[in-house]
């Protein structure tokens, strides 16, 4: 199918009395990693949650593979092949690592039925998950929880991953590990829409970038172009790449 995998047109979202998204227009191309950048409160997380159906869009369209999913309930959105890694990681702390992954593998009736190829892919990137397979996920460190959250999103093939701030709160060494994991994911032709505040992280993994401010997309283009233009970074983000390093 031609055209973008995901397309948002004039999306407005209200949360209670608050008008958060003011007509978001965004395209996510197949097989690419698009980074959504912006200051706190710009509407990045709300955009992901609106796509996921966790907050319903007030107006505008959310098209996934050409189908308008804007009014879908969250489980229906997920069943279309969209996986979501929330900012708080959404780990089930009382369940083991194995059980967390097993729940994400909707097609598996038993833990043993999980796709061994996908598990090998996961263990290759996140060996800690193999080591702590039978441990409650609540005991994992912050970085390991983030790995589990990402692993849960890829334990079965998905068409689109929505990842919210995967580098948040992680130590620099762990962030580099995450960069490697995301690059490895890109090699599997997975399409990713990633929200990030860490521009250095975003620059290393992103193909395209969209910058949000005040609930709108104020810039869209290639990551390479933004990374090369310090003045544009200053204007859009209030910081240059150099300040992140």
């Amino acid at each position, binding site marked *: 199918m031609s055209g973008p995998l995901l397309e948002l047109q004039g999306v407005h979202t209200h949360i209670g009395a608050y008008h958060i998204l003011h007509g978001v227009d965004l395209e996510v191309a197949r097989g690419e990693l698009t980074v959504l950048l912006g200051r706190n409160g710009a509407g990045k997380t709300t955009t992901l949650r609106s796509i996921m159906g966790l907050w319903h869009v007030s107006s505008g369209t959310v098209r996934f593979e050409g189908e308008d999913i804007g009014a879908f309930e969250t489980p229906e959105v997920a069943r279309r092949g969209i996986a979501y890694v929330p900012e708080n990681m959404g780990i089930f702390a009382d369940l083991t690592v194995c059980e967390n992954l097993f729940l994400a593998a*909707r097609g598996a009736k038993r833990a043993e039925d999980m796709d061994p190829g996908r598990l090998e892919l996961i263990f290759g990137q996140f060996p800690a998950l193999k*080591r702590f397979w039978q441990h409650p996920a609540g005991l994992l460190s912050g970085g390991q929880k983030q790995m589990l959250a990402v692993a849960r999103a890829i334990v079965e093939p998905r068409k689109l991953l929505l990842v919210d701030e995967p580098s948040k709160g992680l130590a620099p060494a762990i962030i580099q590990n995450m960069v490697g994991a995301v690059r490895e994911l890109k090699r599997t032709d997975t399409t990713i829409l990633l929200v990030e505040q860490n521009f250095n992280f975003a620059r290393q993994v992103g193909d395209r970038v969209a910058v949000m401010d005040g609930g709108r997309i104020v810039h869209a283009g290639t990551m390479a172009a933004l990374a090369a233009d310090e003045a544009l970074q200053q204007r859009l983000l209030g910081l240059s790449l150099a300040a992140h390093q």
Partner: protein
Amino acid sequence: MSASSPTAPASDALPAVRPDRLPLFLIPVLALVALPLVKSFSTWVTLTFAGLAMGMIIFIIASGLTIVFGLMDVLNFGHGVFITLGAFLATAVLGTMTDWTGRDSLLFNLLAVLAAMLVAVAVTGVVGLAFERVIIRPVYGQPLKQIMITMGGAIVGEELIKVVWGPQAIPLPLPVAFRGSILFGEAAVERYRLIAVVIGLIVFAAMFWVLARTKIGLLIRAGVQDGEMVESLGYRIRRLFVGVFVTGAALAGLGGVLWGLYQQSVIPQMGELVIVLLFIVIIIGGMGSVGGCFIGALLVGLVSNYAGFLAPKVALFSNILLMVIVLLWRPEGLYPVGKR
């Protein structure tokens, strides 16, 4: 499901998992503390069994209430209606099976009670389905309205029961083989209480197995922690909730049969009278925790019986006192559920 996998390796790097077993010791500690106070060993055995039997019945009734709260944050003050309905259905079923309940045959008596339980479970399950659709669903996420409307539902339900069975108390005698006691040395343990303990253990084991070993159980446990994430994985949590609500109502109906037989008489207000006790139990256990609910129910059963024997006036508020003590120790209950 089995949690193991062919790819699962041995793990050795994280600190060993140390499950919180301290609350489990409360039950034997309470029993041992009561022993010198009661003074007579045989009386202590009788009281302990009575307490455990009462606790088991309370657990069956309260388990659905705690999961319903844990999964969807729904406080159902109408839960008592299912208990009352179960008990009244038992009077109807057992009333038509007096040939079986009047025989001095454990088998026939058990079959009669089993029939009453099946009818109670089926009918309260269906009523629970309607209750969820008509009363609970319109007020999801609105706690204040939930309290008001479920209380209203309880009142309407109680009045409907009065319409069908009348406002007066109806006797619910124990089947013949359930009457009397079994002697363990000098200690007399009522047969029915022994049966109630066995049924309670079976229900607990079944519930534990479902929650620990099946995908549905995992989904319920995950949903109690983070329902939004469960939906993001593609599962319809509303559907899961309806299933849990219906199961909770059915368990309350089953508990109503046991509670009615325990009291040997049923009144339309019995659910309303016991609902406060149920909330005490699930608060003690930790809202949403089935294991906590089990321990809380046994503690409440034991404290009620010991206090009733040792200091009847204290028994009037002993469970509130127990709750206060537990909450001073663990403000979120014995096994707080880590929610998102």
